[in-house]
């Protein structure tokens, strides 16, 4: 008989909650539509959508709470003690917290938007939850196998989600492009893993680290392919071309989800892989990352300038932010990794906020995604316009917003590590970024509104998401580590969280 493995189920708790949530949501829709569809047919979809979004947000919240609890208790659990492929430590819990929170906000944003697009809810939320489950695996993995599996479990639902608005050709195309690039990237990633396995005889980070020999060509090639594979996922130059098309075509709520959570998961997994399985100071790795970071910042920011579509602009902006984040990897110190984590945290809320505004403005199944669609917003919906300005300023890194603190910590860590030329590239490109981030305020405040009807309502879910994003962006702008002791601000110590999390990297 097979010896039963020594398992610790609590290590799987966040994953399990999300996974169970996906099943519940999937079944829930069937049951709900059966029970209610007889009467009151026109509004039943709306009601089901709301219920499902609450349901999935609830399960995500459970996962986040469990992760927070685990974070506080400062443990590092492995599911399978004999072969620890994952470790639920502070680093993972931080990531789960961020991803889960972002996903909750996406759920809050989705219900009304999906009704507008007449998209079915059940599968949407189920896929969203599965993607989150994949991310959880990915960020807590300490074995290449699980990194890959998590990556795929994250990607496959998102391929589908990108094509969810399947009546629209653009959505189909978006899904197709994302899929082809994603599958291609995972092929490359896998080949890297295979070569590393060949060179070191292990798939676990510790094993690879132990067996890694920088003089072994196989290992170096494997590492290179691994980084390239990740570069696709984080949309780094030169593997970024898919991003704008995909972001533009996918339904906006999905784009928001993609832009935010995928980036967090991929980046945090990348940091974990690079620090866990390799010495971060390997010469060729540093050089590759340096070039990638610089090129990503330049291309992302410059291309964003010429976009006419806000979603495309945000896509290029996300590329640019990937470039900034890569600086942290180039610097490679613990402080830099903490800065990456903090930046990701801020990035989640500012980007999500920006997409939330687009979602709120979606009218009759049509997205407000061109710059012209925002003309004169300030006179019609002043609060919304003001929030958009806040998010844009934060993305641009203007002081008083979380984006500035993020850049400060990131650039600071890089300067400390001696990467000043890269930081200069970063600030110069972020100057370029100011140009396009300012375009939205310009059209919103300085142009007259067009005649097209505009949605004048905000659902409570959307309002909630917007407020959370704005509050986080603002609070982090002033109190990233220690609050002034009023309200709950004292508990939002993101900077410390990031630093404590990074302590769990080898």
């Amino acid at each position, binding site marked *: 008989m*097979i010896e039963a493995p020594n398992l610790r189920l609590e290590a799987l708790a966040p*994953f399990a909650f999300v*996974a169970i949530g996906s099943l519940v949501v999937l079944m829930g829709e069937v049951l709900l539509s059966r029970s209610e569809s007889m009467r009151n047919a026109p509004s039943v979809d709306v009601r089901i959508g709301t219920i499902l979004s609450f349901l999935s947000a609830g399960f995500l919240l459970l996962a986040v709470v469990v992760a927070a609890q685990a974070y506080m208790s400062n443990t590092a659990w492995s599911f*399978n003690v004999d*072969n620890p492929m994952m470790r639920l430590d502070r680093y993972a819990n931080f990531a789960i917290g961020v991803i889960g929170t972002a996903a909750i906000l996406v759920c809050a944003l989705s219900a009304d938007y999906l009704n507008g697009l007449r998209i079915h809810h059940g599968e949407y939320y189920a896929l969203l939850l*599965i993607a989150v*489950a994949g991310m959880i695996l990915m960020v807590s993995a300490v074995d290449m196998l699980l990194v890959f*599996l998590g990556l795929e*479990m994250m990607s496959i639902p998102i391929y589908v989600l990108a094509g969810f608005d399947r009546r629209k050709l653009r959505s189909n195309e978006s899904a197709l492009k994302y899929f082809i690039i994603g599958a291609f990237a995972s092929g490359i990633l896998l080949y890297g893993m295979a070569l590393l396995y060949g060179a070191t005889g292990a798939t676990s980070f510790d094993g690879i680290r132990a067996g890694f020999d920088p003089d072994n060509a196989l290992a170096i090639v494997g590492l290179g392919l691994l980084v390239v594979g990740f570069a696709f996922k984080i949309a780094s130059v030169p593997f970024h071309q898919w991003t704008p098309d995909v972001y533009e075509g996918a339904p906006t709520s999905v784009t928001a989800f993609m832009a935010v959570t995928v980036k967090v998961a991929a980046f945090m997994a990348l940091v974990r892989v690079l620090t866990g399985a390799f010495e971060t100071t390997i010469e060729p790795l540093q050089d590759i990352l340096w070039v990638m970071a610089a090129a990503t910042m330049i291309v992302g920011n410059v291309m964003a300038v010429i976009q006419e579509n806000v979603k495309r602009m945000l896509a290029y902006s996300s590329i640019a932010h990937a470039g900034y984040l890569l600086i942290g990897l180039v610097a490679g110190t613990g402080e830099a990794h903490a800065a990456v984590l903090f930046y990701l945290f801020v990035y989640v809320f500012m980007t999500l906020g920006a997409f939330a505004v687009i979602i709120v403005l979606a009218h009759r199944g049509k997205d407000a995604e061109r710059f012209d669609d925002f003309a004169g917003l300030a006179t019609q919906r002043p609060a919304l316009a003001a929030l958009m300005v806040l998010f844009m300023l934060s993305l641009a890194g203007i002081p008083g917003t979380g984006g500035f603190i993020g850049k400060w910590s990131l650039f600071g860590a890089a300067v400390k590590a001696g990467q000043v030329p890269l930081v200069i590239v970063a600030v110069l490109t972020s100057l370029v970024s100011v140009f396009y981030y300012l375009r939205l305020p310009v059209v919103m405040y300085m142009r007259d509104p067009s005649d097209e009807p505009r949605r004048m309502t905000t659902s409570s879910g959307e309002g909630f998401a917007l407020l959370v994003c704005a509050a986080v962006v603002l609070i982090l702008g002033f109190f990233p580590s220690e609050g002034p002791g009023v309200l709950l601000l004292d508990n939002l110590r993101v900077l410390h969280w990031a630093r404590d999390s990074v302590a769990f990297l080898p």
Partner: protein
Amino acid sequence: MSAELSLFYFFAALAVGSALSMVLNLRNTVASAMSLVITMVSLAAVYVLMEAHLVAVLQIMVYGGAIVVLFVFVVMLLNLRQDDFPPGRQRGAKALGVVLVVFAVIKLLALLPAALPDTVAALPEGFGGYRDVGTALFTRFILPFEATSLLLLSALVGAVVLAKRRLD
């Protein structure tokens, strides 16, 4: 040359040849798919030579029996014609890419002999059999094994959502 080695050369040549014919066949998608099947089956043979019996069987079952059938199925269902795929742009970049890939592969091939050890580990009893691998799956790799179910569920739901004809 031993029997195993000559078998290997035979199947390797078959795999490469059919892979090439898959990529280079510009007229006929189904023929490409058939070439792919031949590659898969020859690879399965190579797996057997590498003592990976379970993998070999699953290779045929999943790749040959399911995946490629699915490809062919879709080709037939959509009745895709070649002119459905307009010629692309960026030909120069693509040519460059191809050259780079070819160069990289050659480079890798040149590096290989030095990078690999000459000796090969002794194989434990039952290596690569379904008991050995299955036991590993259910003990050391229980987490990925179980997690795969969720992945498959998502693929299932996704495929249904995307390909379902009626929208209700």
